[in-house]
Structure formats: structure tokens, C-alpha cells
């Protein structure tokens, strides 16, 4: 007899986890499944980490509506869920006179989309606001609602708050198909057995096309993964004050240079359409393009100060915009399709997907209400996800207090980012626990600095083994067969025999 849920969310990216958190407010039995060993390890872990103000999406598109609706929700979310978030505003920077006219077009689109707090700046003002900007700047568009965040932190905090409020999360659980009773979805099949439900939410990101096709919905819909490569520049070299976009191209917002909540500078992304939903390789051509794009905005960018490279895939779809008269075919899908009952269908959630995620989650709640669900609020729903101590952000006196309670917060394991053993252990025993090195890395930022884990890796491996009660040989980078250590040395093998 499969376990019975009111709602099953397929996919543990930022959209799935945010939806779980919003739905956890109501008296519903909810399951979220994620095929990877950790939540937020796809697109949500590898993106530009920005909350966009909403001047970029085409007026009339669902993207524009949800992006603009979501922006005012972030401040409150950040204070409830305690993730890293900084409302620094953002800039679109025109370099050279020929790019200048494009700023006004963006500004006008922002006005039409209902974006508040935008202003066109002179080149002089831009140079004063960001001394590192290319001196050939000809003008800039400033939007005060732009913000940066830690996107994995957002996803994790939403997931943990959902779990605190009764949601079950099963990781390493892959969707295989729907169980139907006529036109009604009554459950799902997974690699870990069947689960029945009244509602399934397709939040499968890059795989959202495959999930909806399993339900017979939108057979023409297709995700074309769009790869973006990135470089990270050491904060010790320089730190940008804010977020700097180039004037956008036809396919993307272009290669930007942005500050991050870590203080490092991120450059990227490229935009390359591909078939493969898993190919996140970095390429010499991609990295060269990122470097050139970054240098165009910030000439101080120097290849010698790169501390990390990565790539992510955007879940770009081909859904036509439903607003009459708006010709656009890469819109978000947020719907309850008519052809099947019991499915909330989300698809094509590419950029600005992270920015829009709270509004998408709210829209899912509204769609369920419209479909006749009487959503009753839980009396004991707790919107607060408490922050855990982060050593690097504490004053010395606060550090002393934390260490007095648990001395493991006194031992620094990651030198570059000052992450302590206490923080690592807390993440291994949290509501959505870390069970791999990358899980620890994403939660604590350990190993993200200059040495990229060279010092901490053996130490974290040891801590993971000890806390999880497994052998160090079983500790992995990102689950499954991504293990670090393949056997003991001869001396240890001999001693064990």
C-alpha cells in the first residue's frame, strides 16, 4: 500500500523547495522528491545568484509578471528564512556611445513592467559609484530593487523550513511516471517505490518537459538546456560594490560582473544551447568568452586571480506567452492543465526563475485554491528558519559565546573562509542534512576560497565519516560513486587483516 500524500512535489530546486515551504502553511500532507543526493544541486546551485528587478522580461509575459510580483517578497523572506541576501541594486552599463540608446529601451520596458526605483545615470555618476567600472562607460541604468543572494542557501532554508513544518523530503528519489485513474493523477512511481497523492507538482526544472509528457501534457514543449560558464575572482584582489550587466543581447542578459554575498566577484554566464541535460563541462572557449566579457565591464579583471570555475544549465523552454498580442515563445508555464486532473505544471523556469520563485510558489497556492482546495492554515505554522552560527560573520565576543557552548566552534577547518568544525557538524545534523563534501561546501562555503579545499578536504572527509558513522572510503563528493578514497594503504590493509 503506497504512502498517501495530499501533494507530491517533483524536484528539489529553488522552485520546488519554495513551493513546499509556501504549501507547508496549510493542513496538507506533503512529500518532495529529489533525484540527486541533495536538494538544490542543479540549476539552483550554479547560477548568477541575483534577484532581478524585472526590467528585462518582455512586457506581458508571465516571466515579467511573476518577476515583478516576486521582488517585494524577498526582503521578508530573507528575514524569515535567514539566508544571505543583500539589496544592493543593480546596473546595466553601456560601454561606448553606441550602446547608450539601448539603456532607454530597457528603462521604458521596466516602466511598462511596473518596476519601481529605476534611474538613468550619467557616465560620470557611474564612475563615481563604481570606480572599477570601465572608464569608457557612456551611461547606466540603475534599478534599486536588484539584489544578490546565496541561491543554494535560499533553497536550503526554504526546504528546511518546509521540513520543520511537516513536509517530508526524500532525496535520491527519482520520478519514473504517474499512476493514473482515468484522467486523474493518483500517485507517482519512483525508484524507491510508489507514492499516492491527490496533487502532483511538476517542479523538475531541466526535466520538466519529460515529467509533463508523462502526464500527456504539452507534447510539443521542450527544454533546451542553455549552458552558462562562470569564473570566480578572489575577493582579496578587488571587490565590486554591486551588480553590473552589459546591455543585453538577443539571447541573454550577457556576461556580467557581479559582487556576491561572499565578497568574491562572479563573471558570466555564457549562453550556449545544447541537447544534453547533464553536460556542465567548462571549455577553454567559454572561459575565454567570460573573461573577455568581464574585462569589458571591469578592466581590473585578471586571469591570475581566478579561484574557481563552474557551469550551470538554464531550463530554457519553448512555451508561447498566453497574453494576446504578445509574441514570445520562451515563457514560464505555471498552470493546472485541463487535460489531466491533479497536476500543477511548472515548466521553462529559466532566468528569472530564482527571482520569481516566491511568486511562483504563491501562484501554485492560488491555483490550488482556484481548483477548489480548501486550504486551511496550520495553527502552529512557523515561518521562521533560524540562522545557525556562521563563525566568519560573528564578532570576537559572539565567537567566544558560541565556543563556550560548544568548543568545536573554536576549531577552524577551512582557513580561507574561516569555517569551523562546529558549523560542519551542525550541517550534518540539520533538518535537511549534508551527507557529502559538496553538501558541506554549499551549506558552509567551506572550500570555496583560494585553496579550493586543498587543506580542508581530508579533514572534512574525516568529520563526515565520524558523524555519519561510515568509513572514510564511503565519503563522497556528491553522492553515489563520486567517492574520494578507493582503498586503504598497504600498511593499513595489513593491519586490518
Amino acid at each position, binding site marked *: 500500500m503506497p504512502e498517501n500524500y495530499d501533494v507530491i512535489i517533483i524536484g528539489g530546486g529553488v522552485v520546488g523547495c519554495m513551493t513546499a515551504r509556501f504549501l507547508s502553511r496549510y493542513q496538507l500532507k506533503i512529500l518532495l522528491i529529489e533525484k540527486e543526493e541533495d536538494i538544490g544541486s542543479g540549476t539552483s546551485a550554479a547560477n548568477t545568484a541575483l534577484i532581478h528587478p524585472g526590467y528585462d522580461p518582455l512586457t506581458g509575459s508571465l516571466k515579467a509578471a511573476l518577476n515583478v510580483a516576486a521582488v517585494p517578497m524577498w526582503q521578508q523572506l530573507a528575514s524569515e528564512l535567514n539566508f544571505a541576501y543583500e539589496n544592493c541594486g543593480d546596473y546595466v552599463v553601456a560601454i561606448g556611445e553606441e550602446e547608450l540608446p539601448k539603456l532607454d529601451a530597457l528603462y521604458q520596458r521596466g516602466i511598462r513592467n511596473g518596476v519601481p526605483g529605476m534611474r538613468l545615470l550619467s557616465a560620470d555618476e557611474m564612475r563615481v559609484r563604481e570606480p572599477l567600472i570601465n572608464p569608457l562607460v557612456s551611461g547606466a541604468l540603475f534599478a534599486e530593487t536588484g539584489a544578490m543572494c546565496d541561491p543554494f542557501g535560499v533553497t536550503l532554508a526554504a526546504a528546511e523550513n518546509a521540513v520543520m513544518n511537516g513536509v517530508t523530503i526524500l532525496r535520491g528519489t527519482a520520478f519514473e511516471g504517474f499512476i493514473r485513474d482515468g484522467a486523474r493523477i493518483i500517485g507517482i512511481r519512483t525508484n524507491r517505490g510508489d507514492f499516492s497523492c491527490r496533487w502532483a507538482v511538476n517542479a523538475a526544472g531541466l526535466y520538466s518537459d519529460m515529467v509533463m509528457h508523462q502526464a500527456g501534457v504539452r507534447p510539443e514543449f521542450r527544454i533546451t538546456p542553455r549552458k552558462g560558464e562562470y569564473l570566480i575572482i578572489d575577493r582579496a584582489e578587488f571587490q565590486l560594490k554591486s551588480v553590473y550587466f552589459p546591455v543585453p543581447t538577443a539571447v541573454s542578459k550577457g556576461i556580467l560582473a557581479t559582487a556576491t554575498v561572499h565578497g568574491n566577484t562572479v563573471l558570466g554566464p555564457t549562453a550556449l544551447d545544447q541537447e544534453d541535460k547533464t553536460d556542465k563541462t*567548462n*571549455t577553454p572557449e567559454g572561459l575565454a568568452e567570460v573573461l573577455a566579457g568581464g574585462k569589458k565591464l571591469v578592466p581590473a579583471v585578471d586571469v591570475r586571480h581566478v579561484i574557481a570555475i563552474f557551469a550551470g544549465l538554464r531550463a530554457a523552454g519553448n512555451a508561447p506567452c498566453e497574453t494576446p498580442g504578445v509574441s514570445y515563445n520562451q515563457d514560464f508555464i505555471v498552470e493546472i492543465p485541463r487535460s489531466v486532473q491533479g497536476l500543477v505544471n511548472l515548466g521553462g523556469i529559466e532566468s528569472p526563475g530564482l527571482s520569481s520563485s516566491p511568486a511562483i510558489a504563491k501562484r501554485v497556492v492560488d491555483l490550488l485554491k482556484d481548483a477548489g482546495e480548501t486550504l486551511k492554515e496550520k495553527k502552529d505554522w512557523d515561518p521562521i528558519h533560524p540562522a545557525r552560527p556562521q563563525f566568519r560573520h560573528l564578532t*570576537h565576543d559572539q565567537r567566544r559565546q558560541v565556543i563556550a557552548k560548544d568548543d568545536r566552534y573554536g576549531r577552524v577547518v577551512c582557513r580561507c573562509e574561516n569555517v569551523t568544525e562546529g558549523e560542519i557538524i551542525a550541517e550534518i545534523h540539520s533538518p535537511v542534512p549534508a551527507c557529502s563534501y559538496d553538501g558541506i561546501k554549499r551549506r558552509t562555503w567551506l572550500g570555496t576560497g583560494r585553496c579550493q579545499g*586543498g587543506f580542508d578536504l581530508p579533514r572534512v572527509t574525516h568529520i563526515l565519516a565520524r558523524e555519519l558513522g561510515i568509513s572514510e572510503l564511503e565519503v563522497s563528493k556528491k553522492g553515489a560513486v563520486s567517492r574520494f578514497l578507493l*582503498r586503504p594503504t598497504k600498511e593499513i590493509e595489513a593491519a586490518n587483516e
Partner: protein
Amino acid sequence: MNSREYDVVVVGSGPGGLAAAIAAKKNGAEQVLVIERDLELGGILLQCIHNGFGVEVFKEDLPGPSYAQRFIKEARDLKVEALLDSMVLEASSDRRLFVTSRQGGIQELQAKALIFAMGCRERTRAQVRLPGTRPAGVFTAGTAQRWVNVEGFMPGKRFVILGSGDIGMIMARRLTFEGAKVERVLEIMPYLSGLTRNYVQCLQDYGIPLQLQHTVKRIIGNQRVEAIESVAVDDRWQPIPGSEEIIPCDTLLLSVGLIPENELSRQAGVRLDPVTGGPFVDNRFQTNVPGVFAAGNVVHVYDLVDWVTEAGYEAGKSAALFAQGKLAKPSKLVRVSAGENVRYVVPHTIDPAALAEGSIALQMRVRQPIEAPVWVEAVAGSQQLTRRSLPYARPGEMVTLNLKPEAAEELQKSDKLVLNIRKR
């Protein structure tokens, strides 16, 4: 909270730090403290179980831990204090430190003289921007060395090593002892980046191929490394199309250079040389910040530990004198600069008055290899102060030129000392 005061505080207990602490004690500093982030004194020497240490200092060929033990014992006998399992969080230009540890929490320390001896860290995959996937199985050689020699685990069974640095070559041999297959060592440059003796003893003796002017084009494998694609490069490091080769392996080790670890030094206002990555130092190993000294690989990457020990002694002695108010102010500072075919020289400045009291070792790295007899010369103005002949000069091997007291008078007349390495 009151801060504890010391005459000399040394950050790091590798060979540079231990020698500095010992020399500080022997030169009159009473309260000497060494701070070490690991559980034991000795630094990276503890994972260097191969031999080759001490040939210059002890005229003996010792493994790393044995070499370290001699200094650990001497430091203990001299009553050098040690804070183990402790990380320095902050260092200021007035030599105040904040340290954290499980046992002591956050402690504030004040040093009359401070010695940075943090050594260096390894260059990573990102710093050489290796393309491809990001699976488990890409490690720096030093991380693998710790796993094998200290923790007792093998991080792979079939290896490719990128970079012909010393740690990589030494690990090639160590992994072979452990039954692993080391497919080959790839080096992007047309010459070895480590010591020739390591090439002979670690690669040649075990039949491990070294391919010069080759690099990794991409890493293959999503969960664990499955193979790497290698490629030959031309003289401008550009890949040569058609030379690609897929090499199946489960691990890629990186031995692509070391970077002096100077985050604390920067905090303390110490100016760094962009070429070495370490502080500008004078012949006392004092940085631009008075009372702040630097010893060992934190200054520049040495080829032999014995020279690190010697530098540690000099820095420790100078720091002890500074703490006692006895370190003479330089009469003048002569700038030492890298001339023909020299990449850098340490120290960066010399006080001719100090030279009059004793020889000063100038240590440098050659820019381009010369496989023929060379002159190493020091020139002040148009005057050649000293020179020595060497059978060859290679980037992987440091060159030392001793400046003798006799040269002090000539140097006194000059502002600049230029070092050249040229064919005889």
C-alpha cells in the same frame, strides 16, 4: 579581555617556523610562542615521509618527519611555547593577533616581534582553469600526500599527474609503491619544474613517462574521473590540433605550483612582491612593517628544506634582536634586482653595514634554463662584486650566490645590486 604578551610569536611550525623560534630563543628572546593549526608541530614535513632532507644542515639524508623531530626536540628543550590545533584569524601591523582553538577559544596575543612562517599552498584546478567536468578524483598532490602518508588512504588506483613539481614526482613514486599505476606526468613547459634528482629517482627509476609540452585538455567523468584528454602544446602553450590523446584513469593529481600563503601578512599591512607572491624582505627577513618578519616558503618557494631552515634562523635571530630593541637600523638600503635571465632575487634589499658583519646569501630563480656552464654574477653600478660558475641553471633549482663582507665597501657606494645569470 587582556592579551597575553610575548617577545616573539611565530605563525606556523614547519621548518621555517621551528628554526625561527629556536633562533629567537638562542638570541635572547625569553617568551617565544609558535602557533600551529595542525595537531602537532612540524607542518608539511610530517607528510613528507620520503628522504632528501638535511643534506645541507646535518650532512645526513633524513625523511621529513625525522628532520622535523630534531627541531621539535630542540624547541622543546629551549622551552619554546606552542599553541597547537589553533588558527590565527587576524594579524595587525602593531603585531596583535587573534587566535582561535577548541581548548582556548578566542585569544588575543601581543608580540614584540612577529614572524610569519605559514609556508605556501598548492595551486588548484581553477587557477590553471582546467576545462571539463567536475567529478571526484581531481586532487592536489599535497592533499593526496596527506591522505596516503598520514591518513592511510589511497585516493585512486590509476593516476595521471599534471605538472612536474617536486611533490607530484615524489607522489608518483609513492603511489607506485602502493600498487597504483601512474600513467604519466604531463608538463606544459618545455622543461622540468622540479628538481632533476626527483625526476631521476621518482620517475625514471620506476619507468613513469614524463611528457614535456603537454597538458590536460579536459577532464572526463561526471561522478568520478574516468579519463583525461591530454594535448601537446607549442612554444606559446597553444594546443596542437591532432595531438589529443584519451588517457583512462580514475585520478588526476595536480602539481602545478605553490603560492606563498600571505593572507595574514596582507592583513598586517605587509607589502607583497607580485613575482614571488611573498613579502618584500631585507637581509634580516624583515618586511616593510617594522617588527614583522617572514621565514621560509611564505617568502618564496624554496627547492630544499635546508635553505628554509637557514632562512628561519636568520629571521628568528633578527626578530629576537628587534624584540630586545637591539636590531640595528639600516644605515642605507641597497635594492637587489633581478637582471639578465633572473626571475627574482631574495632578499629584496641589503644593508651594506650588515654585510660588513657577515656574508649574505642571495637566492634566486633563473628565468630560462641554460644547459651549459653559466656565470652567476652580482653587479653594483659597473662593478662586478662577485660571481660563481655553475654547470647549468634550471628553473626548478634555486641558485644561491653568497655575498661576502669584502663587498660591503663597494656596495656602500651603490643604490642597486643587479643579479645576472648568463652563459659562460
